[in-house]
């Protein structure tokens, strides 16, 4: 039996969990743990420039790989700086372990230097948290933390570690448990077969059906099962912002994103549907608009691993609690069985008429038919066109992270994700400053992949210090900055709802020269102001020459552009503004 100190046990537990990277920042209360990091090579530590970025990197790593991300911070300000990143992961159900240093046990509660009640301050935004009481319990606490973070509905787990429990002079036996049993925590492992049959009975009677799939399909590794079932049924599919990529975006059955900035056809199809199969989606307010007006004719089957999500916002007809992948597979088996026994169980004519209607909607206002983004030389570049150029330059195969605002919606609308885990954004919390560190986490996970961060000049400045971390670790992420010299989404709302009074949403005289800024950190900066130069600049950004360089592509875009469609607040899903002058 090995004798290890508490600090060494934490790092050994990470090794035993197969952790590759820890993203963190040292400080007094965490120094014993940092000393343990120094003495080994298996777990690599990434030194960030701000703890918020450490959590976003761990988060980006987790979203891209499906494996838990790990962040390590010190007590007090280190811990509080991490809170935004923890909340971001919590809202999107991302598996993450955050280890925070804490002051010595005897100092807890005395307002000592760099003391904060981390378990308390993070409580509303974690799946669970632990306060380590003694070194002996570290292996079990770590095992439980990983188990809780990655099972059921995933989420962040905080492990708060008082410095005395990591004391190098106190050594105890280390044995990492192979599994943990918790009498109070047993996430559903299969869906109820009776409910699945009941759901199939309902689904097969659908005449205007639709699949509404969210981030749970991606987190639950259920994309393949969902795609198979959707094709078997021949139904249209829409994705939430978090679900993009769980069904191939270039497939004919895909209608695009739904909700506040969803496509015309997706929102119309939802509203007029009579049968909805909701999978791993939570009827978020940015999807439903006014829940009392939500899809008035629809009967709803809802699959979710979290029972608390079911009937939270919209009452559903058949709930199924279970992991999306196994439930969808079971469901497909029942559908096959039913169709073999009774091929006429599905009204094919009705489905044909429904598709005809959907194609009419798609033809009328679909995003890709929209020619309004075309501009002549000298006119301001439309941000949508930049995303389209990015899509072409990367052949649709990049990992794309984004920040929050107009650029996020343009990326979601115009970059078509055919695979899960390629679209990485803060959907639930809407955290500006997420994009760059998340992209870095992805790049650590997949060094050979193309990783692009679509951002704006507002968001990028919320964690721009990480350009230095990129220099230190040679991380060639590509930053596409849709620079409209204003807080675009705020400005859009001010245009639409506040009579064009742009309160505190511009700062154009004080923006840095992003090209020189990137160069100051040792990176490549490119600026585009004319549409004629866009394709070349995009090609240069992703060229072989710049393969190992971080490129900051700063594109001046039209400040007056709005994201459309945009819902009419307080309406139903079919109530949308389609442009500055058109409304459904």
């Amino acid at each position, binding site marked *: 039996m090995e004798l290890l100190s508490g600090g060494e046990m934490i790092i050994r537990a990470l090794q035993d969990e197969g952790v590759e990277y820890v993203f963190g920042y040292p400080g007094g209360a965490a120094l014993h743990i940092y000393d343990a990091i120094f003495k080994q090579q298996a777990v690599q530590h990434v030194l960030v420039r701000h703890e918020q970025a450490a959590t976003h990197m761990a988060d980006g790593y987790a979203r891209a790989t499906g494996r838990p991300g790990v962040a390590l911070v010190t007590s007090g300000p280190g811990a509080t700086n991490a809170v935004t990143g923890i909340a971001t992961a919590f809202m999107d159900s991302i598996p993450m372990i955050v280890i925070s240093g804490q002051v010595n046990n005897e100092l807890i509660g005395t307002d000592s230097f760099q003391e904060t009640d981390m378990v308390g301050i993070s*409580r509303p935004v974690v799946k669970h948290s632990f*306060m380590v009481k003694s070194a002996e319990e570290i292996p079990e606490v770590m095992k439980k933390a990983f188990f809780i973070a990655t099972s059921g509905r995933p989420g962040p787990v905080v492990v708060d570690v008082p410095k005395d429990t990591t004391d190098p002079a106190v050594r105890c036996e280390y044995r990492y448990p192979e599994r943990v049993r*918790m*009498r*109070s925590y047993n996430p559903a492992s299969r869906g109820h077969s009776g409910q699945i049959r009941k759901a199939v009975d309902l689904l097969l009677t659908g005449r205007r059906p639709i699949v509404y799939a969210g981030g749970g399909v991606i987190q639950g590794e259920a994309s393949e099962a969902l795609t198979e079932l959707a094709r078997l049924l021949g139904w249209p599919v829409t994705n939430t912002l978090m679900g993009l990529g769980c069904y191939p975006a270039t497939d004919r059955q895909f209608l695009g994103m739904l909700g506040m900035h969803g496509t015309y056809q997706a929102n119309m199809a939802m509203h007029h549907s009579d049968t909805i199969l909701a999978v791993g989606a939570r009827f978020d307010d940015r999807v439903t608009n006014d829940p009392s007006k939500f899809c008035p004719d629809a009967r709803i089957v809802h699959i979710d691993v979290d029972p*608390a999500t079911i009937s939270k916002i919209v*009452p559903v007809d058949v709930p199924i609690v279970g992991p999306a992948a196994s439930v969808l597979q079971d469901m497909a088996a029942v559908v096959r069985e039913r169709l073999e026994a009774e091929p006429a169980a599905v009204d094919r004519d009705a489905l044909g008429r429904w598709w005809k209607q959907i194609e009419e909607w798609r033809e009328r206002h679909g995003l890709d038919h929209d020619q309004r983004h075309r501009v002549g030389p000298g006119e301001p570049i439309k941000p949508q066109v930049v995303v389209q150029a990015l899509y072409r330059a990367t052949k649709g195969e990049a990992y794309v992270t984004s920040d929050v605002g107009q650029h996020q919606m343009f990326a979601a609308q115009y970059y078509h994700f055919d695979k899960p885990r390629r679209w990485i954004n803060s959907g639930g919390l809407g955290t500006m400053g997420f994009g760059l560190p998340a992209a870095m986490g992805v790049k650590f996970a997949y060094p050979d992949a193309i990783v692009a961060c679509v951002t704006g000049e507002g968001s990028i400045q919320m964690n721009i210090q990480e350009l230095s971390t990129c220099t230190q670790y040679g991380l060639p992420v590509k930053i596409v900055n849709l620079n409209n010299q204003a807080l675009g989404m705020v400005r859009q709302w001010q245009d639409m709802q506040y009579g064009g009074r742009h309160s505190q949403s511009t700062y154009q005289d004080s923006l840095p020269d992003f090209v020189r800024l990137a160069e100051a950190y040792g990176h490549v900066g490119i600026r585009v102001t004319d549409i004629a130069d866009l394709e070349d600049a995009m090609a240069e950004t992703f060229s072989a020459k710049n393969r190992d360089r971080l490129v900051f592509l700063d594109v001046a875009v039209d400040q007056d552009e709005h994201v459309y469609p945009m819902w009419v607040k307080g309406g139903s899903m079919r109530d949308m503004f389609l442009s500055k002058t058109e409304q459904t």
Partner: protein
Amino acid sequence: MRRIISVLLENEAGALSRVVGLFAQRNYNIETLTVAPTEDATLSRLTVTTVGDDRKIEQITKHLNKLIEVVKVVDLTEGEHIERELMLVKIKAVGAQRAEVKRTADIFRGQIVDATDASYTVQVVGTSSKLDAFIRAIGELSILEVVRSGVSGLSRGERVVGL
């Protein structure tokens, strides 16, 4: 509608704060709350009374169940149940009032557990509405101090909230 929710949770530091925090965070209302260890010292039994329609109560029980340290959640008001609350009331009692207070306490099967020249302290046990009725019967003007335990409850018959 008033509900009595019974929660079995791990008897660990911080578990109670998660339950209370959940109510605050999700805008649920707590009317009374009692908590103490059970015959198994690793478990605490918590009883909370709250108000809400069926949908809200369903959400409350689901979210309580999601807390890692919560072992079991039962809405006692869904079935036949027994509820009790204990109250201590210090009442002004001089002259003719003394007999009146004693008589009222007897009617409510209360016990006088402390007495001075000028006051009685009465212990009353029963449902919350019985305790309310006692307070009304005594009249607010005579009451010096009230402390109530909050509701505890069990389901009737052989049903148990256990592991």
